[in-house]
């Protein structure tokens, strides 16, 4: 039999149900794999005792005929942005070092209620601000993949970000699945870089309560997993209405796994002309065309569409997100929790606490956000960006008249080397050029591993669906996954 840690969530769930092994055995297999993979720096804190207790409880439930469902006994990694009661929750920041919440986020509580097991908290870019997992106070996470040729052959590569620890852990088989959060691409881009599936649900589908806030109008939790089916199972466990989040949408949670029928005949797949950008490497373009061919061969109808404001999504995002971040991060003042650096007086204490507690990228974004919200600049920057955001959302609304899903590349490149793009914020921001538009419009989107670059690194294809169209999205992604047959491991 294959190693327990090689099984997908669906396979492990079926085996647990049959009694092939126990949740404790599965959890112990992951805990020992985690020990040997510590060089990746994927986990900020491992929680082995809690994991074993949760696994034992799962086995007891199953023995009593009261197993909860497909997630019961499945070991998961939790992004450090989720507040977990009694377990370190730092958002990758020095300012929250040692912070142990006295409450549990709704999404993680939903997962524990479904029987899932927590392996630990995984690394991330500080406050989810980054695309390479290099802004974490706890050091970079490494991508388990290595380039086989080219300039980066053998070098340490970034896993993408901000959910870099989540993606690296799932790809390296040190978690069966992981939670992530996506504000501008933070689930999908690391999913693509690590050769796994990353799903950002519709804004409002998963509760934001207890998820440390970055940009509240964009933040959305979602699953990172090794297959589309696993993503569907995890989303079912994470999603749901929550009165504690005022933007949580009160809609029933469908059986997402049941949507994977394998049949996309007649599905209209939009291919947006504006995603064909200058400087996109030919291998990204070629993979995109291959994806179009796969979906056409499966019976989909391919439709050329236009999303005219695509190129403005990223600059608009870099006004809206920092503005919201500067407001959200005002709470870190050293008074009630987290780091406090004593100064000469109250204001000096605030200023020194925040200067020492926040890393450089976070400070840069807080400064940008404060500036665009300040008197005299609010209309020119912030209101303008919000109006552009409306234009972007309207582009998608018009597109849904002629298509049911949209296919694009996930990223403009494969994973790059640690240290690359570090000194050029805009080059780093451009990683999210294909993922940000769906974020700005609040739409569900998924990255599916679809092929390898010339240097042997994974590349993803990206599907976008209308709001609350997760079932269609997953159905199309499942067909794409089957056609691509991506079965390479790092």
């Amino acid at each position, binding site marked *: 039999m294959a190693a327990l840690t090689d099984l997908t969530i669906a396979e492990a769930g079926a085996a647990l149900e049959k009694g092939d092994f126990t949740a404790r055995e599965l959890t112990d297999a992951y805990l020992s794999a985690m020990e040997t993979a510590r060089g990746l720096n994927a986990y900020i804190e491992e929680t082995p005792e809690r994991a074993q207790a949760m696994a034992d409880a799962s086995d007891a439930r199953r023995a009593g005929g009261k197993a909860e469902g497909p997630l019961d006994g499945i070991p998961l990694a939790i992004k450090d942005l989720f507040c977990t009661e009694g377990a370190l929750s730092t958002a990758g920041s020095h300012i929250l070092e040692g912070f142990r919440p006295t409450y549990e986020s709704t999404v993680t509580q939903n997962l524990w209620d479904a029987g899932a097991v927590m392996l630990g908290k995984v690394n991330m870019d500080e406050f989810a601000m980054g695309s390479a997992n290099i802004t974490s106070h706890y050091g970079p996470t490494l991508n388990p993949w290595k380039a086989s040729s080219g300039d980066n052959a053998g070098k340490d590569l970034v896993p993408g970000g901000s959910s870099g620890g989540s993606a690296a852990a799932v790809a390296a088989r040190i978690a069966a699945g992981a939670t992530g959060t996506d504000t501008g691409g933070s689930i999908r881009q690391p999913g693509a870089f690590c050769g796994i599936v990353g799903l950002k649900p519709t804004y409002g589908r998963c509760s934001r309560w207890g998820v440390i806030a970055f940009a509240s109008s964009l933040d959305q939790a979602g699953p990172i997993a090794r297959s589309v089916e696993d993503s569907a199972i995890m989303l079912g466990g994470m999603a749901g209405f929550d009165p504690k989040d005022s933007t949580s*949408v009160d809609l029933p949670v469908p059986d997402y796994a049941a949507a994977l029928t394998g049949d996309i005949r007649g599905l209209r797949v939009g291919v947006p002309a504006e995603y064909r950008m200058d400087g996109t490497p030919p291998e990204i373009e070629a993979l995109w065309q291959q994806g179009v061919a796969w979906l056409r061969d499966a019976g989909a109808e391919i439709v050329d569409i236009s999303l005219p404001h695509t190129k403005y999504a990223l600059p608009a995002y870099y006004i809206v997100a920092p503005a919201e971040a500067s407001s959200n991060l005002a709470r870190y003042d050293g008074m009630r929790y987290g780091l406090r650096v004593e100064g000469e007086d109250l204001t000096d204490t605030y200023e020194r606490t925040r200067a020492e507690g926040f890393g450089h990228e976070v400070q840069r974004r807080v*400064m940008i956000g404060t500036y665009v919200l300040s008197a005299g600049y609010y209309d020119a920057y912030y209101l303008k960006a919000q*109006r552009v955001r409306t234009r972007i959302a309207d582009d998608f609304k018009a597109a849904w008249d002629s298509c049911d899903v949209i296919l694009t590349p996930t990223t403009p490149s494969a994973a790059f080397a640690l240290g690359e793009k570090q000194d050029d914020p805009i080059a780093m921001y451009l990683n999210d050029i294909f993922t940000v538009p769906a974020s700005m419009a609040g739409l569900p989107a998924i990255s599916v591993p679809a092929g390898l670059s010339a240097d042997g690194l994974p590349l993803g294809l990206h599907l976008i669906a209308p709001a609350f169209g997760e079932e269609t999205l997953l159905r199309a992604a499942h067909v794409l996954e089957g056609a691509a047959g991506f079965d390479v491991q790092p």
Partner: protein
Amino acid sequence: MALDTDTVRRIAKLARLHVEEDALAPLADELNNILGWVEQLDEVDTEGAEPMTSVVEMVQRLRVDVVTDGHVQDKVLANAPAEADGFFVVPRVIE
């Protein structure tokens, strides 16, 4: 609208971030680089486009106006950098 060091100093004060004098100029350069890049938004005709404040079309929910939690003083104080007798201890606010 290029930022000078005086503006950066003012923004840092608003953001409650301590920035050393010799860090102001490099920070101004970084911020100007980003702001220069976002200025391409001026190309977009936004006449008649409402500023988006919520991406989901929903009516703001109201809940019943009753107390739903409380009596969790120990939990509230659990992560305090300094506390005494059930209170947060903070630097002197009024001189």
